[in-house]
C-alpha cells in the first residue's frame, strides 16, 4: 500500500523536476527577450516590448542579417540535400549495382566523422581548390552532411515500400513517370518531409562546420557565438524565442490535425 502511494507521487514529481530543468534555459531566454537591456543582457532592468518591435535596429541589423543568412543557407541546403538524398536512397534500395555497399558506407561517414575534422577538411579542400569562402561554400558543406541524414531517413521508408505497389502501378497502365508521381512519391512523402525538416534543423544550428567554411559571412549561430564574448543582445533572445514558438506551433498543429484525422477515420470505419 505504501509502495503504491509512493509511486503515485514520486513519478509525477520526478517528471515535473525533469521538465523544469529542461525548460529553465528556454524560459530564461524568453523572459530576457523582454529585458530593457543596454549593451549586455545579464541583469534584469525592467520590462519592454522594444526589442520585439525593433529586432533589426541593433548594430545596423546584424542579428537580422545573420538570421536571414541562416534561413537562406538552411533552405538551399535542405532542397538540394533532400532531392539528391531521396534519389540516392531509392537507388540504394531498389537497384543492384557495383559498389552499392561501398556507397552506403561512404554516405554514413559524414555522420560518424567529428564535425571539427569535417569542417577543417572541407576548409583545406576549398583553399587548395581556390574557392573563395562565402555563402556558397557554406551551402555546399551543409548539403554534404545533410545528404547522409536524408539518405538514412528516406531509405527506411523506401525499404518499407512494397515493390508490388509499383508493379501494380505499371500493370495498371502507368508509365514509369506516372508510377513515380502517383505511387512512389506520395508514399515516400512522409519520409521525405521528415528528412527535409531534419536537414533544415541541422543546417540552421550548425556552428562548427560553418565556422570553418563561412569566410566573412555570418550565420545566426556564428553571430551568437561571437557576441557571447561581449554580451548577447536581447534581440538574439527575441529571434531565438520566436523560432522556438514557431516550432511549437507547428508541432501542436500537426498533432491536433493528426488526432482529428484519426478520429474521423475511426468514425468512418
Amino acid at each position, binding site marked *: 500500500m505504501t509502495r503504491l502511494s509512493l509511486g503515485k507521487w514520486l513519478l509525477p514529481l520526478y517528471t515535473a523536476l525533469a521538465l523544469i530543468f529542461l525548460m529553465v534555459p528556454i524560459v530564461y531566454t524568453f523572459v530576457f527577450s523582454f529585458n530593457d537591456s543596454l549593451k549586455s543582457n545579464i541583469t534584469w532592468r525592467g520590462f519592454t516590448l522594444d526589442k520585439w518591435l525593433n529586432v533589426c535596429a541593433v548594430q545596423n541589423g546584424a542579428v537580422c542579417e545573420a538570421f536571414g543568412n541562416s534561413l537562406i543557407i538552411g533552405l538551399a541546403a535542405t532542397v538540394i540535400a533532400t532531392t539528391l538524398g531521396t534519389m540516392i536512397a531509392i537507388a540504394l534500395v531498389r537497384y543492384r549495382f557495383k559498389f552499392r555497399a561501398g556507397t552506403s558506407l561512404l554516405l554514413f561517414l559524414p555522420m560518424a566523422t567529428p564535425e571539427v575534422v569535417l569542417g577543417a577538411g572541407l576548409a583545406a579542400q576549398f583553399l587548395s581548390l581556390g574557392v573563395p569562402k562565402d555563402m556558397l561554400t557554406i551551402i555546399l558543406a551543409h548539403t554534404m552532411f545533410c545528404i547522409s541524414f536524408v539518405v538514412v531517413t528516406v531509405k527506411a521508408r523506401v525499404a518499407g515500400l512494397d515493390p508490388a505497389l509499383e508493379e501494380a502501378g*505499371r500493370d*495498371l*497502365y502507368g508509365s514509369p513517370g506516372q508510377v513515380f508521381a502517383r505511387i512512389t512519391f506520395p508514399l515516400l512523402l512522409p519520409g521525405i518531409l521528415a528528412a527535409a525538416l531534419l536537414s533544415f534543423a541541422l543546417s540552421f544550428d550548425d556552428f562548427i562546420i560553418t565556422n570553418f567554411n563561412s569566410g566573412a559571412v555570418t550565420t545566426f549561430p556564428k553571430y551568437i557565438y561571437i557576441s557571447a564574448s561581449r554580451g548577447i543582445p536581447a534581440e538574439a533572445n527575441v529571434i531565438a524565442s520566436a523560432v522556438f514558438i514557431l516550432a511549437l506551433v507547428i508541432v501542436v498543429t500537426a498533432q491536433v490535425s493528426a488526432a482529428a484525422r484519426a478520429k474521423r477515420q475511426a468514425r*468512418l470505419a
Partner: protein
Amino acid sequence: MSSGAFADRGADLELVGIQKRFPGFTAIEHLDLVIPAGSFFALLGPSGCGKTTTLRLVAGLEDPTDGRILIGGQDVTTQKAYQRPVNTVFQSYALFPHMTVLENVAFGLRRRKIADALGKAHEALRLVELDHLAARKPVQLSGGQQQRVALARAIVNRPALLLLDEPLGALDLKLRRQMQLELKTIQEEVGLTFLHVTHDQEEAMTMADTIAVMNKGRIEQMGAPEQLYELPKTTFVANFLGQSNLFTGPVVGETSAAIAVDIAGRSIVVPKTRSHRHAGGVTIGVRPEKLTLHRDKPTLDAGSNVMGPGRVTDVSFTGVSTQYLVTVPGVGVLIVFEQNRSFGPVEGEGDEVWVTWNVEHGFGLDDDPVAPDPKFVADTTTKSIAAQRRAALVTELEEA
C-alpha cells in the same frame, strides 16, 4: 494497348519456347503453352516451380531470357508492363494505401484516359458488391474486401487476359470458398481469359477448366482436372494432385485389353487404355478412395485386384472419411480412404486386412521406373543451390 479500347472478350495467350534464367539458377527451363481465349487456366505447382515467374513474364514484370509471348496473336515480348492488355490480381493485393477504394479502381482507366472512369469504377465495385465502401481507404477493409477491390481494380480495365497470383492464399476457408465462387461467376459474366497461379490443388481443381502441373521449371502434365486426377502421367502429378498408391514392377502378361504387372509376387491388372506404357518395367497406381478393405480373404474374381494380407498401422478419423495406413509385406504402405457410412472407423490398428480395387480404377504412369529420364538437369553448383534455398526461404516467409 491501343488506349481506350476495351477487349470484347478474352484473347489467346501463347508462350513459345520461354526460358528464364536468374543469376545462379534457372526458373523456367523451356515452356511452350497455349491458353485458349475464354478459358480458366490454372498453373499448379509447389513453390519454386516457376509458376509465379511465368505469370510475371506474361504481365511484363520480368523479361524472358529466351522465347516469345503472344497475346491474341500479337507478339508482346518487347512491350513494357504498362503497354500490355493484361492485368494482375497480386498475391498481396497491392492496393494503393494512399488512395480511396474508388481511386484504386479508377487508376487503370485514368492512366488510359478513358471517359467516365469514375462511373465505370463504381460499376466494377457494384459487381463485387463493395460500392458502398468506395470512399474508404484500403486499410479500413477486411482481407476479403481488399481482395475483391483488387479484383475490381483489375477487371474494370477489361483486359484480354487476367492474371491471378495466388489471390486467395491469405483468406480463411469460408472466404476462400466465397471468393472462388465469385471468381467463377465473374469469369462467366465478363468472359475473360483467366490465368491462375496456385499451389493449392483443390483450388485449381474446383476453379479451372484446364490445369497445367508445373515442376522444376517445366510442365509435367496438362489437361482437364478430372483427366489429370484419373490418369496422371508422372509420379509427381500422381502425388501432387491428390494422393496415390504407387507400385513398380515388370509387365508379365498381356491381353488385347489389359496388362498384368508383377508386384512382389502378386499379379495386378491395369487396362491398356489407362496405362501409358505396355511393356518392360512400369509404375502403376490407384487412388486411396478407390480401395476397399476386407477382414477376410476375398475370393478372386477377374474384375478386381487384391493386395494382402496386410496390417492396419494407422487410423485417422477425418469426419467424412477415415484414412487407414495398411502395411503389406514386400509392397509397402497403402493409403486407404473409407467413407464413414457407419459410426466411426470400422477397422482397428493391428487388424489383418485385404485391400481390393476395381481393375478399371488403376492407372499406369508414363515414367520409366528403371531408367528415370532426367526431365530437368539440375544446376548443382553451390551458388545455384544457395540461390534456390534463398528463394524458397523468401517464399516461405512471405507465405507465413
